[in-house]
């Protein structure tokens, strides 16, 4: 297909608009030829992932044609479709893809003329806008085919002593899932690579790293899983991405080079940034998370990003930000899509190099891990100091006359796997907490390096066992008698909020969730 040709996807509900569409077809009406019609049972079932997917693949416009409000066969379809469209339009806007490329219209079965007019004006309007900034084909970033034997050697999986300490410590196994790191290692060694159990387990692993902590042979199981996923992807196994693969799709879309993004649009004017700053603040994906989850979780992970900027300003650091900052690529790397990870890394690394900064600060443990270690390992040496904001805060609080206001709540702390285990620095957030004045700080039963995972990482493999794990974690938090769980990662916040929405959980267990950065920003003051 020609790169210059326009492509439009029209999702048509089987009931209202499809009847009208068929009538148009019957009479040979001049439906624009660039339109690909996809008949669906109900537009309310076209989630944000499916609305967004065509844009990732290079579509220039997507129209969702549903039933007129009140005529939905299933009651809430029209309403759901409208809200999904609104959220997806916001995400398109953040990405710098004009939101008018996605539309939701409603029809009755006897409105073929109205449908035809709509289709024509839709195509005309978008042609006037021009092609989508996301091309259908993007330059290939090569990754050599992997051999399992090489992966096994790289992580010395053969040194597995079959002792089973990994499985006995694994939070997934403890939540009742038939999952065993030891069995995965065994399957990989014996070449049982197509077995259902092996494939399922490779995608289920939380990559939380508890097994690596316990392994007497120091087999880096999380990184082994990361490479095994890449291996499976190369061998045409689909991953078990959650949320319909929305986030992976979003990240792949960001590999388009010509996006002019609006990801900083929510930064209020009192927060100062400076394009010539010597320190770069790397924000991460929080605006996307908040938009995606706003309907049911009401999470505000962007406050982590904004409060980080406020803290930098408080200590007289006016950082640069990348206007077109892409996702760091963590989730693509950890779900087997190394090719697209490299595209993101190249774009980010080039933008960073052009700013001439000497230090990059980030508040996200995954961004930190990725920028500080994985970029270099994958061939993108940034040659600048990468600092986690906790280190920055520790440094500045140490030399400044600042104090903290009372935080009238008792707290506990949810470790992030990337900082507390992968970086081996569980003491870092605790030193900060010890300087602050919560009404009490009590550790959960499992904390620090043996902390239990928030239930998921990399938007992959979430299931009822993940949920059981989260509910168990919430119980541990509740048992400390705290009012607020302090988190260190936006995803922990999303996942714990999700677990609290679990209808089978006792509503009494409602706890506040607040990121450590926000806690610092809200209570810090000059002496």
């Amino acid at each position, binding site marked *: 297909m020609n790169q210059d040709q326009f492509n439009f996807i029209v999702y048509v509900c089987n009931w209202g608009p499809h009847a009208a569409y068929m009538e148009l077809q019957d009479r040979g009406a001049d439906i624009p030829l660039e339109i690909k019609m996809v008949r669906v049972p109900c537009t309310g079932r076209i989630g944000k992932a499916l609305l967004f997917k065509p844009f990732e693949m290079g579509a220039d416009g997507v129209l969702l044609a549903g039933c007129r409000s009140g005529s939905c066969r299933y009651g809430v379809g029209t309403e759901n479709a409208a809200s999904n469209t609104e959220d997806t339009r916001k995400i398109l806007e953040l990405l710098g893809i004009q939101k008018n490329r996605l539309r939701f219209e409603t029809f009755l079965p006897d409105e073929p003329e109205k449908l035809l007019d709509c289709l024509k004006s839709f195509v005309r309007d978008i042609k006037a806008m021009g092609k989508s900034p996301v091309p259908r084909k993007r330059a290939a970033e090569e990754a050599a085919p992997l051999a399992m034997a090489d992966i096994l050697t790289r992580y010395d999986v053969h040194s597995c002593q079959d002792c089973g300490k990994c499985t006995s410590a694994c939070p997934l196994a403890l939540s009742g899932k038939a999952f065993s790191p030891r069995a995965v290692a065994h399957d990989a060694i014996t070449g049982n690579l197509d077995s259902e159990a092996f494939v399922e387990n490779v995608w289920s692993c939380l990559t939380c790293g508890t097994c690596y902590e316990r392994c007497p042979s120091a087999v880096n199981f999380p990184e082994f899983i990361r490479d095994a996923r890449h291996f499976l992807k190369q061998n045409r196994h689909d991953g078990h991405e959650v949320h319909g693969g929305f986030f992976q799709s979003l990240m792949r879309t960001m590999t388009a080079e010509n996006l002019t993004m609006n990801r900083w649009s929510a930064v209020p004017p009192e927060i100062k940034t400076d394009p010539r700053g010597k320190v770069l603040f790397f924000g991460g994906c929080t605006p996307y998370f908040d938009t995606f989850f706003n309907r049911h979780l009401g999470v505000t992970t962007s406050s982590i990003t904004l*409060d980080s900027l*406020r*803290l930098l*300003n*408080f200590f007289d650091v006016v950082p640069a930000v990348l206007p077109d900052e892409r996702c760091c690529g963590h989730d693509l790397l950890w779900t087997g899509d190394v090719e697209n990870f490299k595209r993101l890394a190249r774009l980010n690394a080039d933008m960073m190099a052009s700013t001439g900064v000497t230090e990059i600060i980030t508040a996200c443990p995954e961004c930190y891990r990725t920028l500080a270690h994985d970029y270099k390992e994958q061939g993108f040496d940034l040659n600048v100091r990468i600092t986690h904001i906790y280190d920055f805060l520790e440094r500045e609080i*140490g*030399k*400044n*006359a*600042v104090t903290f*206001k009372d935080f009238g709540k008792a707290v506990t702390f949810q470790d992030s796997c990337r900082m507390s285990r992968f970086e081996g620095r569980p003491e870092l957030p605790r030193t900060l907490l010890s300087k602050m004045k919560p009404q009490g700080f009590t550790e959960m039963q499992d904390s620090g390096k043996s902390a239990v995972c928030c239930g998921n990482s990399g938007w992959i493999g979430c299931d009822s066992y993940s949920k059981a794990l989260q509910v168990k974690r919430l119980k541990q938090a509740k048992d400390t008698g705290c009012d607020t769980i302090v988190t260190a990662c936006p995803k922990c916040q999303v996942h714990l909020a999700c677990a609290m929405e679990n209808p089978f959980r006792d509503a009494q267990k409602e706890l506040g969730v607040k990121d450590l950065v926000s806690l*610092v*920003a*809200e*209570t*810090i*003051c*000059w*002496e």
Partner: protein
Amino acid sequence: MKKEVIITGFGGQGIVLAGKVLGNAAAIGDGRESTLVQSYGPESRGGACSAQVIISDTMIHYPYIRSADVLVAMSQSGYEKYIGQLKDGGMLLYDRDLVQPDDSIKEKYAVPATRLAEELGRKMMANIIMIGFITSVTEVVTLDAAKTTVTESVPKGTEKMNLDAFGKGYDYGLSRLKGLERKAAGKTGAMS
């Protein structure tokens, strides 16, 4: 311009050394006049001891202080003994964890000198931290003079450690002044 400074604390905290560093910095480093009177007696075994330093651009005729511009207190007993000699509108500098000053004193600056010294690994460097704090808050001596004098006054081999301590106190003082400025401008924390 003439400044009269009383430094007081427990014997053993290095109060007299602090006075000496300040005086030397002014006289040798900044080329001004200075005098030092140390109360030296049973205090050096743990009571409230003091060092009285006068720094002036003109010749100093009398070295004893009756009305101090600055009082530096590193112990509660020293504070209580000498607070009467601080003139109205004088400046009080004190160790936050060791001294509880009276609310009536308007111009006062606290530094957790002993705690910072403990964090650096040596409690005995609290006096050097205090010198750094005095340097930035009162500006009775210049930064260069104070640093040079600290380097020359401490035992060989501990110069770097003491300069770090000095820097800690100096930065803390700068930050304290900045904080006051911010607060005056209505910016108390990170959110407002």
